[in-house]
């Protein structure tokens, strides 16, 4: 028997494209706007969410039969908040430099609707292994969009990628800037993240017409 059955593989594959948490379910938009001005921040956030969602889904799934349905949302919140705070504390004690880069994201992870969404929609009704795969799939689907948005915003807004000046130096007027190219500062502001996400949604639905909702 294969390690991952066909049905389980769909759990990872679907959220990447046809059921992408950002472009199809339109969840996790807040963090997609907030931290995609830079490619590096997008990557860090994606990895953090991957970790928290994978682990959180497993924890919720293990607890699914004992969680009282009336307070399940609060229980989910507590689980994710506890996980994130513990990770933050451990990093602060043993990997201080790393924790300083990540501390900005802690608040954003706790309030990320994708995490609550997957707990609620999947982990509460499925076993730990399937929940784990679902968490990983959704986190990667989220990360792919985040990194794509971060890529375009940093490239067009600052003319850099991961801090490297790929288009030349805007002050010394080298590279593209020698021909009169200018960075578009508007790309660095949050509204442009929404527009970039909108363009991705548009392209995706043009390619796959079955995704277009009927009114």
């Amino acid at each position, binding site marked *: 028997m294969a390690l991952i059955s066909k049905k389980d593989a769909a759990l990872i594959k679907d959220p990447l494209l046809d059921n992408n948490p950002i472009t199809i379910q339109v969840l996790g938009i807040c963090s997609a706007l*907030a*931290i*995609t*001005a*830079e490619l*590096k*921040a997008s990557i860090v956030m994606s990895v953090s969410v991957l970790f928290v969602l994978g682990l959180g889904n497993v924890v919720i799934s293990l607890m699914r*039969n*004992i*969680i*009282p*349905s*009336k*307070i399940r949302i*609060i*229980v989910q919140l*507590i689980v994710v908040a*506890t996980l994130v*705070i*513990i990770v933050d*504390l*451990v990093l*602060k*004690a*043993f990997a*201080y430099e790393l924790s300083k880069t990540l*501390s*900005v994201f802690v*608040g954003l992870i706790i309030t990320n609707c994708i995490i609550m969404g997957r707990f609620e929609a999947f982990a509460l009704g499925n076993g730990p292994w399937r929940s784990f795969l679902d968490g990983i799939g959704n986190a990667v689907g989220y990360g792919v969009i985040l990194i794509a948005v971060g890529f375009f*915003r*940093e490239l067009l807004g*600052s003319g850099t990628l991961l*801090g490297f000046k790929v288009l030349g130096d805007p*002050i010394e007027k080298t590279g593209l800037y020698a021909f009169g190219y200018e960075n578009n*500062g508007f790309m*660095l*502001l949050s509204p442009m993240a929404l527009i970039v996400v909108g363009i991705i949604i548009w392209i995706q639905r043009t390619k796959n017409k079955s995704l277009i909702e009927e009114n």
Partner: protein
Amino acid sequence: MSKRTDSNGYTMIFAVVMVLIVGSLLAFMASSLKPNIKENQRIEKQQNILYAMGVNENDESSATFVSTSVAGEEFKKYIKKQLVIEGDKITESDDAYLIDIKKQKTNAKNGKTRKLPLFIGEKDGKTFYVAPIYGKGLWDAIWGYVSMDENMVVQGAYFDHKGETPGLGANIKQRYFMDDFNGEHLLTEAGDFKGITVAKGNNDPKNDDKNDYEVDAIAGATITGDGVSAMIKSDLSLYVPYFKTLNP
């Protein structure tokens, strides 16, 4: 079918037990890791102060501290004196760098005298006066260390923040922003305190003009930049009387 987990009694007990478990787990983690975290923060302060006076491992574009393992030694080697200025009284203290600036600011608001730490360092025969600053950015606290010569001309600056937006306000701790402060004057020629403003569109993006009391702002980070200007004004101006005693 009514599930066992739906009853009010079960819900209450579950909530209480969950809060107890999570609460004690977090309390245990926090208190057992506290010494490590405190130590990390202490070393970081030393690294920050050293960074501002030019003791760092920067390469072309990165901002890199001296490594944590040698920070203590380097701090002893380069920082010759740590002063605490309290009104007219100036005392020396080896723990001045541990003074909590935020607390001192609150004290000052409540009418108590504020303790102003000042670190005097020497490197390559040059004397640096490093002062801490503390203020607020867009989301949360921002702070930093500014090193000056005896005429309050900036020799180096280090800024940090708690939760500014990555890619925008968070860039105050990038070299291209911090390095702009080097050589800027804080005092007018008449000797009055003017400060340095983080300004938009000052037509000097390369920052060649060191006498304009302005550095170029970061696009998309107006409020964080204003916070930097404000903390420089409010906190460094307090040191003017001390610097006056150096150049009578």
